[in-house]
């Protein structure tokens, strides 16, 4: 019970500490999307015949003719009600659009994060334990080349190889084969929903469609993760306390996993914030490449259409997601490292 109340206190405290940043996010988003050059109203009126009267009508409709502080107040008020405006592209509330598309993005990001962890942790550890070996060299090559190839190029090259050349991968558009009927939405994660519905065809299609985008996204963040795991593990294994553990005659297993890795995970955990930031950002590019129906591809379409309510909703949602994930990382860190107290 005590741990739970401590945890809740911690969550509250962290959210409180994040308040200035959140306020900054709200202000910056408002400023970026309403005050700076690209006037939303003239973007809306894309037809060349749009006259001044029409633009003025749209401005009035969007509340853009009112003074800025008032606009900001309306923006905050609507936000508090969960109203992000109506999308021009779909004609539906932006909140509804985002909510419908979010699971697809989360599915992709979670899968990529898991894959990146699964590959980079063991690789980084092995590289650290056998410095200058071939594994180490491999890890360093991955760590160097991995960040140099842009995600969208990785994705396109994977499509070229596995879809165009060999035909092993399914058609690289969307989450599910177009001839299949999506299972009833329960979790929003297509694979899980298909399993719940007992639809094996949908399950295997969803899984197959997920592979290439996941690999594309994961490769981009593997590089820094391998790098930091290797460095942290080497530092931990060279530390005084690992020497003590060796001098006490502890088993190699215990020395490496409990004393070495336990401490090496702390910097890796810290890096996870940056990794998640990168994943959220790069997912936009990957979703565009694979026509993945998540919020990233939605935002790209919205940008092209000048749909500023949708873009604003997307930016706010991304920032919100990121704040939440940082909170989770912070809590994990505090659970692992006693030097940073939970309270």
């Amino acid at each position, binding site marked *: 019970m005590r741990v739970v109340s401590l945890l809740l206190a911690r969550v509250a405290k962290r959210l409180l500490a*994040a308040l*200035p*940043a*959140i306020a*900054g*996010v709200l202000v*910056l*988003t408002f400023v*970026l*999307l309403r005050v*700076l*050059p*690209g006037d939303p109203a003239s973007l809306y009126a894309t037809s060349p015949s749009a006259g001044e009267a029409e633009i003025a009508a749209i401005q009035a409709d969007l509340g853009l003719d009112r003074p800025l502080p008032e606009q900001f107040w309306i923006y905050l008020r609507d936000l508090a009600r969960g109203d992000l405006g109506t999308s021009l592209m779909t004609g539906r509330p932006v909140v509804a659009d985002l909510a419908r598309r979010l699971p697809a993005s989360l599915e992709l990001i979670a899968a990529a994060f898991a894959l990146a962890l699964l590959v980079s942790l063991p690789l980084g550890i092995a590289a650290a334990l056998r410095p*200058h070996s071939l594994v*180490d*060299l491999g890890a*360093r090559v991955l760590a*160097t*080349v991995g*960040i*140099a*190839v*842009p*995600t*969208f*190029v990785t994705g*396109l*090259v994977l*499509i*070229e190889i596995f*879809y*165009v050349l060999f035909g092993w991968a399914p058609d690289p558009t969307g989450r599910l084969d177009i001839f299949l009927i999506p299972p009833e939405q329960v979790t929003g994660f297509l694979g899980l929903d298909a399993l719940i519905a007992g639809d094996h065809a949908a399950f295997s299609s969803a899984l197959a469609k997920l592979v290439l985008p996941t690999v594309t996204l994961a490769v981009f963040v593997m590089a820094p993760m391998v790098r930091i795991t290797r460095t942290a593990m080497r530092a931990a294994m060279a530390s005084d306390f690992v020497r003590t553990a060796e001098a006490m005659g502890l088993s190699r297993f215990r020395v490496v996993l409990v004393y070495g890795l336990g401490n090496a995970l702390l910097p890796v955990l810290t890096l996870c914030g940056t990794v*998640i*930031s*990168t*994943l*959220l*950002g*790069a997912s*936009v*590019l990957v979703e*565009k*490449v694979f026509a993945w129906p998540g919020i990233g591809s939605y*935002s*790209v379409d919205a*940008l*092209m259409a000048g749909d500023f309510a949708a*873009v604003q909703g*997307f*930016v706010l949602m*991304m*920032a919100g997601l*990121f*704040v939440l994930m940082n909170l989770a990382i912070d809590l994990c860190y505090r659970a692992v490292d006693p030097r940073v107290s939970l309270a």
Partner: protein
Amino acid sequence: MSVRTAIDRRRSWAARFDLAALIGGFAVAALVVVAVAAPWLVPYDPYASNAAQALQPPSLAHWAGTDQIGRDVFSRLLIAARLDLLIAAAAVFASFAIGTFAGALAGYFGGWFDRVTGRLVDVLLAFPLFVLAMALAAALGTGVASLIVATAVVNLPFYVRLARAEVNARRGLGWVEAARLCGRGPLGVVFGALVPNVLPVLMVQASTNLAWAILNAAGLSFVGLGVHPPTAEWGMMVAEGARYLASGHWWLVVCPGGALAAAALAFTLLGDGLGDRLDLRGRDG
């Protein structure tokens, strides 16, 4: 003798990696030369379309093939090197200069300036980087200048934080206090003693960061937030080429993509090499 050979092999791997850093250095130099001399190096006019020659695969005449309206891809790659390097270099220089200045002052003096810069940095870092860059580029409108500003602003927090941390870690050291005893005032200590010592660390960051800036700008172009169509830019060339990928015209993606990766790799290798050297010197000292 097994010990000996192990040591020898170890040295050879190490040497090979040092070699990689050297290659990075040369590649960066070559890249700069190509970017500067591109107008005189191009075999064809990078903007001249030729419908009869559209979508030709790479050949001796067209090393990287031709695009959908028959422009020579290789010429466009060379010309694009200019723009891509310019955007990355300008963005990194801006964030490097401003970030180092603000970060060094915040790190040495602390106080209200530190708190204010810290808060601003927190706000920028509350967005996923690329999302913030998208929002900035969208707000500023398409074009080279907005690409530069968007990339620079997104990068700024890292320089502020790094400069602040490096300066703050050194502010109490003997040689910094010695500079005060030698008659330097606070600003003299920051910019005469601390910043010159911190600069190498920041340069390593800048080198690695150039790679990131190239990819970031290309990513913005890829989603349509970059330069306007006829202009040659690697990211946009990939975006345009992607439409012809399924029909087997792989070179339209692979060539500009490869150019992007090669440029980013060159800066990464250079940064790593500089970083390793710095580490070594730190250990000696």
